[in-house]
C-alpha cells in the first residue's frame, strides 16, 4: 500500500491522525474511541500510526496492542476495496449461511477473512446484521442483500465484475 505521501513527508499522511488526537485528552478511557476514529479514517489501524499514538500519549505499546487485538472490530491489515460482511448470526445460520459462505469463498478464491488477489473484495463474517427476517443476509459496502442462496451470492459477485468490465 502506498502509505506515505512522497512530497512533503510526514504531514499529510498524519494530518487525519493529528486531528483525531486533538479531540481527546489521550487518557486510557479515550483509547477505544481513538482507535475507532483511526480505523474510520484509515480503514484499518496502520502500525506507524499506532507507534505515533504511543509516542504522543504515553500509552504503553502493550496496552494499545492489547486493546487493538482484543476487540474484533479492529483490523491491523487493510481490506479490499469492497468489504463483504456475511452474517453468521443464528437466524442466518439456521437458514443456510454456511453454504453461502462456501459459495462466496469458492467464487472469490479466498478464505473467510481473506482479500482477493486483485484487491477488489475482502470477505468477513459478522454476528447479526439486524435484518434476520431476510436471512441469510450479507452487506457489500452499504448495500444489503437478503434471502441469499449460494447461487444468488455467486451471481451478485459476478455482477460486480461484469459492471467493472472484468
Amino acid at each position: 500500500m502506498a502509505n506515505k505521501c512522497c512530497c512533503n513527508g510526514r504531514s499529510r499522511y498524519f494530518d487525519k491522525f493529528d486531528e483525531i488526537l486533538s479531540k481527546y485528552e489521550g487518557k486510557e478511557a479515550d483509547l477505544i474511541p481513538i482507535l475507532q476514529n483511526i480505523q474510520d479514517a484509515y480503514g484499518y489501524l496502520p502500525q506507524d500510526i499506532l507507534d505515533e499514538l504511543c509516542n504522543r500519549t504515553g500509552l504503553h505499546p502493550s496496552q494499545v496492542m492489547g486493546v487493538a487485538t482484543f476487540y474484533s472490530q479492529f483490523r491491523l491489515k487493510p481490506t479490499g476495496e469492497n468489504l463483504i460482511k456475511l452474517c453468521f448470526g443464528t437466524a442466518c445460520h439456521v437458514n443456510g449461511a454456511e453454504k453461502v459462505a462456501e459459495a462466496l469463498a469458492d467464487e472469490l478464491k479466498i478464505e473467510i477473512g481473506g482479500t482477493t488477489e486483485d484487491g477488489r473484495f475482502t470477505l468477513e463474517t459478522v454476528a447479526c446484521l439486524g435484518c434476520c427476517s431476510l436471512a441469510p443476509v450479507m452487506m457489500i459496502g452499504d448495500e444489503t442483500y437478503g434471502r441469499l442462496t449460494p447461487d444468488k451470492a455467486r451471481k451478485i459477485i459476478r455482477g460486480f465484475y461484469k459492471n467493472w468490465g472484468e
Partner: protein
Amino acid sequence: MNNLRNDYYKIVVGLGSCGIAAGANKVYDTFKGIIEKSDVPVTLDETGCMGMCYKEVLVEVINPDGKSVIYGEVTPEKANKIFESHIVEGRPVVEWIVKADDMETSEDSFFSKQMRIVLRRCGVINPESIDEAIAMDAYKAIEKAVKTMTPEQVIEEVLNSGLRGRGGAGFPTGMKWKFARSSEGSTKYIVCNADEGDPGAFMDRSVLEGDPHSVIEGMMIAGYAIGAEEGYIYVRAEYPLAIKRLKIAIKDAEERGFLGKNIFGTDFSFKIKIKEGAGAFVCGEETALLASIEGKRGMPRIRPPFPAVKGLWEKPTNINNVETYANVPYIILHGAAEYAKYGTEKSRGTKVFALAGKIAKGGLVEVPMGIPLREIIYDIGGGTSSGKKFKAVQMGGPSGGCIPAELIDTIIDYDSVNQTGAIMGSGGMIVMDEDNCMIDIARFFLTFTQKESCGKCTFCRIGTKRMLEILERITKGEGKEGDIELLEELSMNIKKNSLCGLGQTAPNPVLTTIKYFRHEYEAHIRDKKCPAKQCKALIEYKILEDKCTGCTACSRVCPVKAISGEVKKVHKIDSSICTRCGACKATCRFGAIIVE
C-alpha cells in the same frame, strides 16, 4: 397505530435497520419525489420498527380522520400506486394492506396476542422527533418522580412492580437499585447495557432505533433513585443507526432541559454519554463492560464486589439492560399495580422477543409474561417458514438452550423456561424446523463462545475448545462411543470452574440438545447418519432416474462439475467430487435430486 389527528394524509415509512435493508430508503425517496410534484398536501414522516419485519418495507398511511392503514412489502413501484389510488383517489389498495384500523386482515393474529409497554412508541413515533415522543408521554414519568416522589418511593414502586432485569439473568431491578442507593459514596454512575451480544437478537437495537427517549428517561429515573448524576450507554459499534438516533435524542433532551442541571427546577441533575463497544461478546458481561468503558481490555473480574458497590472507576454503579430501563417510565407513570397486572406471579409485565429463524412471521414481538410458547410460535409467528415440521426453538442465544417441539406448551416466564434447561435470556427466539441438525446448532454456538472466551479461565478457554473438537468430530462422522458422556463431563467442569457467565453458560446449548435430542447424537455417532440431512460427511446427493428429465440445469450450476449426463438423458452425480453444496437440488425443477 398513530392516533394523532392531521388535517390531511400522512405517510409514515418504517426506517428501522431491517426496513432499510429491505429498501425502505428508496421507498421513502419515491414518496418524497411524488409529494414534491403533486398538489395534494401530504406529510411524510419516518418511524422505527413496527414489529412486522417479515413484511418490510412497511408504510403506514394515516387518513385525515386519524384512521390508519399499513401496507406491507412496499416497493417504489407500489409506492406510486398507493399514492395514486389511496391518497389521490381515496381508494386504499386493499390487497397490499397488512393492518388497518377499520378492516380485518390475515395478519391481525400477529398483533392480537401482543401487549405493548416497552414498544409503546416504537414504530409509532418518529424517533428523531422529541415532540412526537413528548406527545406520547415521554419525560412525564421523570417529572412525576422528581417533583412528587422521594428516591425511596421510586425504588419501592419499581420493587412492587416486580420488574426483573431483561438482560438475561432476571435479577429484581428494584433490589439492585436499593443496593446501589445504600452504597457509600457521593459519586455514582448509571450504565445502560446496550451491547446486545446474542447473535440473532435485535430487541434492544429496535428499541434504541425506534424510541431512544424511553431508555434515556428510564436511566434518569434510575439516576434519581440511586443518587447518580451521570450515565453511560454502552452500545455495540455494529449499531450505527441506534447510535445516531441516541445522539439526536440526547441532544434534543438537553436542549429542552430534560437532561442537564436542575431538571424541572429541582436540584436533580443528570447527563448521559455514549460509549461505543468494539465487537467483543464478553463485554456484555457487566464487569467486562465497565472495564471496556474505562478503556481496558474487556475482561470480567470476580464479583463481589458487585458494581453496585464498586463499579465504574471504583464508584457504586447501577447497570441495567436497555429493555429494563424502557419499562421504568411506564411503571412510574402508571403505577406498579398497573404494570404488575400483566404476567405471572414471579415474572411480571411483558417481554420483547426477536422472533427469527425458520419462522413464517419473523419480527419484534412483545407479549405478556405467562403466554404459552405455542401461541408465540403459531398464533403470532404463523408456524415455520418452510411449512415443515417445527422442531425446536433456541432461547437465550449462546448462553441458552433449545426447547423441543414436545414442550411447546411451556409457559413463558423466568422459572418455567429455566426448568426446560433453556433460559429467558435477553429475548432471542430462533425457530428451527426438521431440516435443522441439532448437533450442528450446538456446534454453531460452541464455535461462537469458544471464539469469544476472553481466555482468563482455563476451563472456559480450553474446555470449550475440546467440546468444539468433539462436536466437529461427531458432525464429520468420526464420533466415538463415549463422546456424549465426555461432553457432559466437560460441561459440568466448565460450568463449575468459570469465572463469568460466558463460561458458566457456554455448555447449555450442548446440554439441552443432548437432553432432548440424544437420539440424534447417537445416530451420528453409531449409525453415521444425520437425521436432518445436514452434516456433509454423512449425506450424499443422488438423482432419481425415474424423475430426471435430462434438462441439464443441475450440471450447469454444479460448481465442481460433479454431474454428468447428456441432454434428455438421466444425469448422474459423482459423489467423490461432489462438495454437498446443494446447488443442484435447489435448481432441479422436477424434484429429481434427493439427499440420503
